[in-house]
């Protein structure tokens, strides 16, 4: 079988359920692939792993992938299993924020490491300064978890529909205590969790063939996961080496993830790409519209 390594953007969780399902259910084996899945972490930049030769394919968000490309990393999107964005801003109702017009004067928390771009773009669109000056907002870097929101160090926090939001709920708050702004609804969403590889690999026909089989099997995994979310969550749990994930949380996450992958067969939607790239540019992370940052070659072959 041909070896292939996939570098995830984050730790093992249902967010990457499709790949684990494909592995566990033997979809990769069927394509004669021997796939290794490497979990990510807070300070692992998947692009570095990819360029360093530690992986053949990576999962990344489009804004950070485009930024890397502009920095000289020749990476290309080969498939886009996530059709929709799960990003949102969650605020505590007690701070009296009901619409984006209320943001000024408040502290908004976000992850950095490339994940801050959408928030900055949004604020730019709204015309709010982000340096804490009069009439603007204060941006605070937060890590990993929702504690800063619960402990009132920030008034709003970036959350994912499938993960952090539910941690807030698990902490004892009810949806009524919260106000959420989905990026998807605000029209500022960017593409998340796409599959990327390097131009160099795409120039190699043998590699292209492997990628085609990989994408085909992965999409099969995603569709299976969409239909059998509980089973997919169990598979993720089995593959979690830290032993820290809980069943309840992963099953719920898988259900939410299914809503995001729904409707994608892996083919990149060019309109969504354009929009995402524009938002990224407005956020200042790239200076020009990218060229050649995606290819339909793999998905075209995979789906036919």
């Amino acid at each position: 079988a041909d070896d292939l390594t996939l570098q995830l953007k984050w730790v093992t969780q249902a967010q990457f359920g499709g790949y684990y399902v494909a592995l566990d259910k033997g979809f990769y084996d069927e394509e004669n692939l021997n796939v290794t899945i490497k979990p990510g972490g807070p300070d692992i930049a998947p692009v570095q792993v990819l360029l360093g030769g530690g992986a053949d394919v990576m999962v990344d968000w489009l804004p950070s992938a485009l930024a890397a490309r502009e920095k000289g990393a020749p990476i290309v999107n080969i498939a886009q299993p996530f059709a929709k964005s799960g990003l949102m801003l969650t605020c505590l109702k007690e701070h009296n924020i009901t619409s984006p017009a209320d943001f000024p004067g408040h502290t908004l928390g976000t992850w950095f490491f490339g994940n801050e771009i959408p928030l900055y773009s949004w604020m730019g669109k709204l015309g709010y300064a982000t340096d804490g000056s009069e009439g603007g907002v204060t941006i605070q870097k937060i890590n990993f978890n929702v504690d800063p929101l619960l402990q009132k160090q920030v008034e709003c926090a970036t959350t994912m529909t499938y993960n952090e939001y539910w941690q807030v709920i698990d902490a004892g708050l009810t949806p009524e205590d919260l106000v959420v702004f989905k990026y998807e609804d605000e029209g500022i969403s960017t593409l998340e969790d796409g599959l990327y590889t390097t131009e160099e690999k795409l120039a190699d026909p043998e590699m292209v063939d492997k990628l085609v089989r990989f994408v085909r099997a992965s999409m099969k995994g995603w569709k299976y996961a969409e239909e059998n979310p509980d089973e997919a969550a169990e598979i993720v749990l089995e593959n979690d080496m830290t032993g820290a994930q809980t069943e309840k949380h992963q099953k719920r996450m898988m259900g939410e993830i299914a809503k995001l992958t729904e409707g994608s067969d892996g083919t990149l939607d060019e309109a969504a790409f354009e929009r995402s790239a524009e938002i990224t540019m407005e956020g200042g992370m790239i200076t020009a519209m990218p060229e050649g940052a995606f290819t339909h070659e793999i998905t075209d072959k995979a789906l036919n």
Partner: protein
Amino acid sequence: MKSVVPVLTVVGAILVIWYAAAVWLNAPWAYDVAARGDRVLSFAQLVADTWAQDKPKLPAPHQVMVELWQTVVEKNVTSKRSLVYHAWVTLSATLLGFGMGTVLGFALALGIVYNRVMDMSVMPWVIASQTIPILAIAPMIIVVLNAVGLSGLLPKAMISMYLSFFPIVVGMVKGLRSPDAMQLDQMRTWNASRAQEFFRLRLPSSMPYLFTSMKVAMAASLVGAIVGEMPTGAVAGLGARLLAGSYYGQTIQIWSALIMAAVLAALAVALIGVVQRVVLKRMGMA
């Protein structure tokens, strides 16, 4: 044995402060929850609540003990949910890194003591190397080593090594230079070779320094292994536990991993202490 009572007293004092701090730090959340439920907390209720929260700012000592008990004793040691399993993962990287760090540190110290150019040029850079925040370059080290096909234990051990060679270099340079001028002159009058001088004088007289630095290096190596575990994808080990606990706000899990790490370090250091006593005793120095 003279220190049993004082140690217990200090530990007792820490526990008292710890419990009090738990009440103080966890109270805002308790009040918050009560306010949302339109309840008013009596002091007793407050104390009970702050010592039993799910995700406390500071878990009470007994919560940590319970968690430790559950993850150390009640879980099968091969299970991913067993802290013993994770401790072993970390320990193996620690020991490997410690071994490599000791060898590297020893080699550098030898070079510095016996080679004039190294003596003059290496030390400032060894010091500078330790001012580089390891966490910043750890991911890069991991990526680079990955690229050349090294993964798993070795990258973590390399980071351990990076942190642990420093105390060894510093201690061994001091130790290998600790024979006084007279002892060195004696060797000269006997026309001893460099090797004879090293094995019969410099090495034995550096032993006390060696063990002291090894203790420091062991603690450093453990930190290195944990640092190395964080960006490797947080797969397994105490570092991964810390990180995972941190993603999900599981403070109790963080604290039990912390305590486990400290116990591990204390045990490893104590082990070196035992070896030290045996060796020094055989050398007649204890």
